[in-house]
């Protein structure tokens, strides 16, 4: 027979001991990781036109240059659109797959799940090459939709995994009681499945957004005139036109990330925010 439901209380994980020694040992590692990133901030506030550290004169030239260049604004907007579409496509397909696949009760379910997860394990270059060849046939290389579809391939495993984890915790009796109370397929989805997977969908969406917005390899392969994502522009600018504007845009990006983490902490608290970022999960239930 069924076991009684677990008590709602879950033992709190024990806090790791924070001794001065741990702090002393952790500091160099933290500096090593963070310093190179922080270096872009002073480098962006230069009065000159070369990238140097420390800047020989302080000023806002880089920012003026950045805002004067329409190209940066356009690529950022383009990237946001690509990422939004990639998020939409991944959430829709992976969400439906995660709900529908177990309900098919077919043999080879595990195989299908494995295929869905392949992009996680495959070298991105290989994936990019394949997609490039395939999109060539479809003639969607160098289009917004093309890049978004390619990115959604990368994003699908994240949404699939988070939604599946959420569904594994769903009590089948909830579905059954909704049905017994008169709920049809749509109502069961609306009242049982959707609320249960909503946090997972949101964290999955966030992950896909980050993956897509940050993605450079595939975007490099299938970008074209008028279809250049922000990371691609950054990459090519670094290669061919190393200007302080790059430092300025990196600084702004860094500020945006810090700001969103701070907002996250204010909204959800430190623990849940860290878990969300680390696991892409709605509150620390690990995989």
């Amino acid at each position, binding site marked *: 027979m069924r076991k009684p439901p677990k008590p709602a209380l879950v033992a709190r994980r024990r806090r790791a001991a924070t001794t001065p020694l741990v702090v002393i040992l952790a500091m160099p590692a933290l500096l090593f990781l963070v310093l190179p990133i922080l270096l872009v901030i002073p480098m962006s506030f230069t009065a000159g036109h070369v990238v140097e550290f420390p800047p020989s004169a302080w000023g806002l030239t880089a920012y003026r240059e950045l805002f004067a260049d329409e190209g940066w604004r356009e690529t950022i907007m383009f990237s946001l659109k690509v990422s939004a579409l990639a998020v939409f496509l991944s959430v829709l397909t992976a969400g439906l797959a995660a709900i529908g696949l177990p309900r098919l009760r077919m043999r080879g379910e595990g195989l299908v799940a494995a295929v869905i997860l392949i992009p996680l394990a495959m070298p991105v270059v290989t994936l990019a090459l394949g997609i490039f060849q395939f999109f060539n046939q479809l003639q969607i290389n160098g289009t917004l939709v093309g890049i978004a579809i390619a990115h959604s391939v990368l994003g699908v495993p994240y949404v699939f995994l988070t939604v599946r984890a959420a569904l594994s915790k769903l009590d089948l009796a909830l579905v059954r*009681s909704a049905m017994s*109370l008169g709920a049809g397929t749509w109502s069961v989805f609306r009242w049982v499945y959707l609320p249960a997977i909503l946090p997972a969908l949101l964290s999955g969406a966030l992950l896909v957004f980050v993956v897509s917005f940050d993605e450079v390899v595939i975007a490099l392969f299938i970008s074209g005139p008028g279809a250049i994502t922000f990371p691609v522009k950054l990459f090519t600018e670094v290669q061919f036109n190393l200007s302080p504007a790059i430092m300025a845009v990196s600084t702004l990006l860094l500020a945006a990330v810090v700001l969103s983490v701070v907002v996250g902490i204010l909204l959800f608290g430190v623990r849940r925010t860290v878990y969300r970022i680390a696991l892409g999960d709605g509150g620390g239930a690990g995989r």
Partner: protein
Amino acid sequence: MTVDDSKVTSAARATGAADGARDINVTGLGKRYGAAHALHDVNFTLRDGEFLTLLGPSGSGKTTTLGIIAGFVDPDYGDVQVGARSIIGMPPRRRNLGIVFQSYALFPHLSVAANVEFGLRMRKVPAAERERRGKRMLERVGLADFAQRTPAQLSGGQQQRVALARALVINPTALLLDEPLGALDRRLRQQVEIELKGIQRETGVSVLHVTHDQEEAMIMSDRMAVMNAGRIEQIDTPTNVYKYPSTRFVANFLGEANLLDVNVRENDGARAIVNYADGSSGAVHVSSAHGTGGSGSQGTVCVRPERMHFASDDEVAENAVCGTFVSCLYLGASLRCIVQALGQELIVTCSDHAAFTSPEPGALVRLAWDAADGQLLANES
């Protein structure tokens, strides 16, 4: 709608009861999982307004039976009818059965009120009426003050009552209870048993209750069906099932039983003359509708421990055997004695009264019981 719907439904029940239109008839139900029979030819009727319990151990098929009636499991053969209408193949949402699950299965993101109103929402009942009926049902289970809370803010017992209210508010043809008390602790459980029975009496709803807890079944049921290995072994009132068990399984599953091997000498279907293992003869009751052996066959007699008593040598008894006293446990209100007799250990319980003094271990004693208290069981097929 100004008329009180509980009156409407009880009126509908009163008329329905006459022709059995709200009875649930289960006939020849069977279910196989691979080669194993989960259910085998299960037949019973849940009469309108009745509290019927399916009682049995894990894997006896009681939950499968409930699942088939609810529409979650498809039977391999057999039929389930409401009145004269088969509901096999009908999706669960159209069966109009209220179900309470062991996990309660309350929708965690909805308030208590929204949970209770869920079935009405699915039936497209207008919001005002929905609220009114939901509120009244919450009052009935004593949780009107908790309407705006979420299920997680309630105790187990309260959640269980919300689940009950949610299942009752749709005026179900019957209420199906899937071990609803399994997650409650012992003391709370007894209180809930009485409450549940009270609500059932008040509303007059038919209840099919599934449990493995015999005490729960005894307290609440009008009738109970004892299930074992996919079959119903006996279906009757709790009193009759306890007093007149028809099989060894039922005798053992419900309370304690002394099972004695006998040779049947005479059997007229109501009373039998038997010989015990020590050669002594006695008279016992036969009530099983099927399968007790006739003259000359082997059989089993069940005697409840509280129906045996220590008898003096000159006492005339319909059944009496001699044995050796082994031990006695004092249980407060009663004494539980063990006597070695007929080649086995017999259990005798007697109430603790001043006249009784426990014999010394090893002493020869005589045990006796009335013919009405010995029950010839059906032969195992």
